[in-house]
């Protein structure tokens, strides 16, 4: 899916921060990195893209369609968002349930939901955690489980906020592989990251934010 950000602006007056006139695009099947120092507004921009925050000016287009009036679930069906803090995103007490619960809510039969869940867990080297609880997972494991949750619903675009935090080299490589697979399926990927090497190896373009502006 192609994503266009047009002239986005958003302010946190109490923090003295504003994102100002941010425009860029991401093609279908393209991977773009959003980089910048701490506090430059990367997370804020990610939230604007997936609808967690409403822009105070400008708009976000999905395949040319203005998403301004869209509900969160409507956007969520097309875009997957990895929170910067993945533990906030996990809602189930057990790893398997984390992946089957929303599928079943949306009408997938239980056995099919479980099959898909196992498949995506094995892609991220998490199969042996399938019967565990979610609270005792390490940060990196939570991160990967959250990404599994996004991929289950076959999104057309991904916004990943600091996806490599807490991942070792091998798990980072698994993530990169999954990203490449998504890209070849036409999914566009926006990765927000500090990790220079990961960005260099996995993004075709870099959008740099400084004090709420694209530079």
């Amino acid at each position, binding site marked *: 899916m192609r994503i266009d950000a047009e002239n986005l602006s958003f302010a946190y007056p109490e923090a003295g921060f504003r994102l100002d006139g941010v425009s860029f695009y991401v093609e279908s099947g393209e991977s773009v990195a959003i980089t910048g120092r701490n506090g430059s507004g990367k997370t804020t921009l990610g939230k604007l893209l*997936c609808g*967690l925050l409403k822009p105070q000016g400008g708009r976000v287009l999905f395949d040319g369609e203005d998403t301004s009036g869209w*509900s*969160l*679930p*409507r*956007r*969520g*069906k097309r875009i*997957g*968002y990895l*929170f910067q803090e993945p533990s*906030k*995103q*996990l*809602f*189930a*007490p057990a790893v398997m349930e984390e992946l089957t*619960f*929303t599928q079943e*809510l*949306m009408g997938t039969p239980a056995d099919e939901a479980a099959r898909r869940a196992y498949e995506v867990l094995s892609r991220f080297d998490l199969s042996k955690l399938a019967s565990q609880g*979610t*609270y005792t997972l390490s940060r990196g494991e939570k991160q990967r489980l959250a990404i599994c*949750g*996004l991929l*289950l*619903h076959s999104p057309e675009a991904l916004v990943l906020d600091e996806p490599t935090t807490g991942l070792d080299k091998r798990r980072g490589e698994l993530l990169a592989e999954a990203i490449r697979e998504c890209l070849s399926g036409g999914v566009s990927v926006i990765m927000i990251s500090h990790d220079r090497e990961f960005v260099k190896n996995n993004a075709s373009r870099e959008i740099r934010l400084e004090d709420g502006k694209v530079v």
Partner: protein
Amino acid sequence: MKNNAVPKNNAQIDPRVTFLFVFLLSAASVMLRDALTLVPVLVSAAVAAGWARAPFGTLLRRLRGLWAALLAVTLFQALFSGDVVSGLLTGAAVLERLLVLMLGGSLLAGYPGHALVQGMIQLRLPYQLAYMVSIGLRFLPRFRESFQDSLTAMQLRGVDFRRMKLRRRFKVYAYLLMPAVVSGVNSARKLSMAMELRGFGAYPERTAYLPLRMKERDWLAFAAVLLWAAALMAGQILWRIYT
């Protein structure tokens, strides 16, 4: 030192007196069954809250979802039970009770946490218990936040709550409450571990920075509460005799 553990907005009544009053209010609202006899309890709770300028409005707004749902359920039950009048009276009693409890809660909410804890300690409740209550209060907002995060995460996976049948929706909420509780309890446990590592609980008594002392007006308030309780009981007894 001045007795500055007690804030101005509760007309500076010692929290222990308020504990007693709120306890009696709650007991009365649980023991009395019908809408009519609950009226004097409700009135006295409202008068006390008004006099103490308790933050009732804030509490009402915070618990909007809760009381709106209860109101709906009560009305529903009243209208579809065989006898509408007695159904409505039962509904009214439920609402009155709820209001009394909320007014009592708002009386306590007017005190800063440390004054409540100090009150509990000086009432000879174990101070670990008192601290647990105050820690619990502190974690409530976090609890709500985590619940909200879960809802958001599910919506971002495409789950549309507005299109869901009400029963199903409540099931999901119930399901989500569990992790919210666990994460709340986890944070509280971490905090208490940190406190114990610093020696919290090592001594049976604690020195208070801001000890509470009953002053004249506190004793007056105390007497008023006792008189009120006696009058309420006498009223109930007379009412039963004459009806």
